């Protein structure tokens, strides 16, 4: 069984390759932990009734990585958790393909659930990554909640 040998091993990555959710989740396992909560975010076919063919994700990579690192630091302050891994995929993604994985390990599950929810909410608000929905008859860059920084 793969663990990371008892070391704290937070990670944050952006990749153009398909994501292996199980592998990412195993990387946060620690001997003193009892649970990992993993978010597997993937491409939805219907958004507000409109049918999506595929998505394209684009990142401002150096800033996205530094914002992910800030989220990890903040989550470690806020929750009783051990390890955090965040991996976001960019490029073209088909329906059902995983776009983001957030894995949080902790001694007890409740903190991991709370941290994972907080991390995805903040990631969607602050990490500079954008998605374009491509339809049979056009495409749109999706805008997040712009109230976040105004």
């Amino acid at each position, binding site marked *: 069984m793969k663990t990371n040998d008892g070391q704290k091993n937070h990670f944050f990555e952006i990749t153009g390759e398909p994501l292996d959710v199980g592998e990412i989740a195993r990387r946060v396992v620690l001997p003193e932990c009892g649970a990992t909560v993993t978010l597997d975010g993937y491409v939805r076919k219907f958004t507000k009734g409109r049918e999506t063919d595929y998505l394209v994700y684009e990142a401002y990579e150096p800033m996205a990585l530094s914002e992910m690192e800030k989220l990890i630091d903040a989550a470690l302050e806020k929750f009783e958790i051990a390890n955090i891994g965040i991996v976001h995929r960019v490029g073209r993604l088909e329906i059902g393909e995983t776009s983001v994985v957030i894995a949080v390990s902790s001694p007890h599950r409740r903190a991991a659930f709370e941290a994972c929810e907080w991390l995805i909410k903040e990631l*969607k608000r602050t990490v500079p990554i954008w*998605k374009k929905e491509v339809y049979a008859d056009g495409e749109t*860059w999706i805008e997040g909640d712009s109230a976040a920084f105004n």
Partner: protein
Amino acid sequence: MNVKVLFFGATADTVGKREVEMSFDEETAASAALSQIFEKFPELQKNHGRKSLHFAVNQKYADDDEIINDGDELAVFTAVSGG
């Protein structure tokens, strides 16, 4: 002074470029720089409007009054939508 201006996603499509070099006066604030970017790319303001645009200086979110320096990287983009 010269500043690298970056666009992503919707703003890159609007401007038709991902990166331009622009020259600003010393002590230019981010908001003043954005006004000059609007002059150069009027469609940016027309398509998105000032309120829906965010900016980052050297990969950090910046306020309107942040002063930009020679060699800085100024990114202009719409609200993020990752996840």
